């Protein structure tokens, strides 16, 4: 009967502790400097690579540790809670999410060729789905891969391709058949590729953005990129479906990252509220300061629990679409609210870069938009959980 158990395993607790220790060895000033100079956090990524964390979800047979979504989520949370923000977690996140479809659906030869180098951190990945004319509505992507003997030739354009400036490889979704090839099935006819990021064939143009200046997001122009047929992930024409079962983990990852960032901001705010004296009393004595922080804590706890429940369901092989979507929704709100309350607590200093909260506040805003917007999450819940008619 003792089925309900919220305890982490000893190993999970340990992962949390060690990731926290490693991540906290990079002080807030390190992240401030990355943001100010828009320089990639290589020292941080290498430290995580050396300690084996990048191979977390790669199976042991390919040189990784074969752990689950729960463990990866705990790692990403601790990185964010340590104050590294999206600047620190995105590069590590990219070792958790893009490899997933390869692990799940890739042919043996493809896995043997690439996964060991993913696990060691040698391969740096970007992930190309979103296009200028196809954001939320993925079926409308136009990037096309034309079969030519034992290879494909890809032409098209992707936007918001994060990490492209560093990437050695890309997980790329392209059409191999036009959208109307299978009437009523717009998601068929797309194919997933894992291939070398060939800079002779891909031009990268960075997008200036609100936060995370250190980790680039780009528009990329693909002009005659040649991809060997053995670099197709899974089956030709089934790419979208191969991607689909990795999207729930991605929601969990991004959700728990937002929670972690909220925690980092909250910790700063609590310290500040205790120390800042105005009208002869620490500002934290005012309930108008204390309550938003207390509420932020409660929301973060709830959101984290939802993330971990979704992760647990996934690791148990159970359906987790509703939970993953709800987790990402709650977490993006809770993370943002926590950062906002933290910024308000700091008064004018909240607006100053030196106090580190404004950076977290800018970064955490992303999670309400990407990888899937709050509206689209609610669309999913309305339709698939509540059974309401689809509105679009």
């Amino acid at each position, binding site marked *: 009967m003792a089925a309900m158990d919220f305890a982490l395993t000893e190993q999970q607790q340990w992962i949390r502790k060690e990731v926290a220790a490693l991540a906290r060895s990079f002080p807030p000033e390190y992240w401030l400097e990355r943001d100010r100079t828009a320089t990639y956090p290589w020292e941080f990524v290498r430290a995580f690579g050396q300690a084996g*964390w990048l191979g977390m979800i790669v199976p042991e047979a390919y040189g990784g*540790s074969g752990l689950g979504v729960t463990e990866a989520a705990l790692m990403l949370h601790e990185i964010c809670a340590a104050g590294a923000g999206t600047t620190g977690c995105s590069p590590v996140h990219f070792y958790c999410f893009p490899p997933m479809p390869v692990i799940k659906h890739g042919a043996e030869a493809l896995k043997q060729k690439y996964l060991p180098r993913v696990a060691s951190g040698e391969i740096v990945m970007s992930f190309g789905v979103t296009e200028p004319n196809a954001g939320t509505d993925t079926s409308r992507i136009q990037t096309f891969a034309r079969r030519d003997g034992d290879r494909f030739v890809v032409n098209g354009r992707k936007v918001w391709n994060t990490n492209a400036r560093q990437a050695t490889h890309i997980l790329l979704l392209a059409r191999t058949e036009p959208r109307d090839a299978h009437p009523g099935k717009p998601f068929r006819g797309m194919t997933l590729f894992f291939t070398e990021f060939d800079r002779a064939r891909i031009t990268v143009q960075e997008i200036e953005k609100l936060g995370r200046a250190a980790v680039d997001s780009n528009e990329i122009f693909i002009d005659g990129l040649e991809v060997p047929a053995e670099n197709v992930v899974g089956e030709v024409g089934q790419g979208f479906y191969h991607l689909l079962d990795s999207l729930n983990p991605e929601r969990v990852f991004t959700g728990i990252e937002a929670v972690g960032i909220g925690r980092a901001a909250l910790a700063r705010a609590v310290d500040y509220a205790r120390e800042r004296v105005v009208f002869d009393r620490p500002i934290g004595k005012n309930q108008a300061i204390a309550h938003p922080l207390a509420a932020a804590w409660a929301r973060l706890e709830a959101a984290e629990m939802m993330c971990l429940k979704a992760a647990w369901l996934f690791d148990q092989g159970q359906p987790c679409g509703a939970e993953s979507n709800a987790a990402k929704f709650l977490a993006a709100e809770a993370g943002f609210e926590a950062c906002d309350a933290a910024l308000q607590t700091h008064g004018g200093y909240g607006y100053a870069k030196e106090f580190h909260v404004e950076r977290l506040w800018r970064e955490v805003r992303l999670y309400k938009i990407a990888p899937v917007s709050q509206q689209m999450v609610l669309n999913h819940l309305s339709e698939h959980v509540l059974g309401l008619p689809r509105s679009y």
Partner: protein
Amino acid sequence: MKILVAIKQVPDTATQVKISGDPKAIETSGITWIISPYDEFAVEEALRIKEKRGQGDVVAVSLGPDRVKEALRSALAMGADRAVHVNDPALAGADTLLTARALAAVVKQESPALVICGRQAIDDDMGAVGAQLAELLGWPCASWIMEETVDADAKTVRVGRQVEGGLEVFDLPLPAVLSAQKGLNEPRYPTLKGIMGAKKKEIKDVKAADLALGDAAPQLTVTTLEALPPRPPGRIIQGEVKDAVKELVRALREDAKVI
């Protein structure tokens, strides 16, 4: 070459220590426990010796209650091969000499070529166990070492100690006891594989009886712990700078008597 590392589990440096209801002890609830940082240098150095020689056996030893297993497991995750946990309520109040006697008994069972420990534990700062252990074993001891090199045949070890204005270099025959000073090395973080592998490594439980300690009564007993008196509040000298400086100098000379 077998190397034994003696480690102590202590409260995290960030802990705000509070004296418990029983004024002989500190409040332990809510404390995060870590390996004493100087002992981490010792673990790291032992691992480096092993790696440099391409072979060897690093055994971590600690004395303390159940929670100490966590510290031993951290040492195993860093790369130690085995651990010995001296875990016996009879030793709960052990002073440095009793701790050293227990460790000496473990050393005799394990017969390593080298023992490394931290220069002191950062909780009670006694700094006595390493030297006492060497004395009980009749082994040479070098404390607060900043560097070491074990010779190719593992017969001697050359160590450097920082002294005022320079480095003092010694040769010691092995077996010997060394204690680590900050600067000896930069301890590694455990790898994920190390963490996963640590579960499979042996932690041997040892009782006082297994060590034939005989009389296990400590000779040093804590009478009481007293908190420091609160710091008197600072004083802000108001007024024109010219006058304030005069007043400051006067106060430093006459009230504080520091100049």
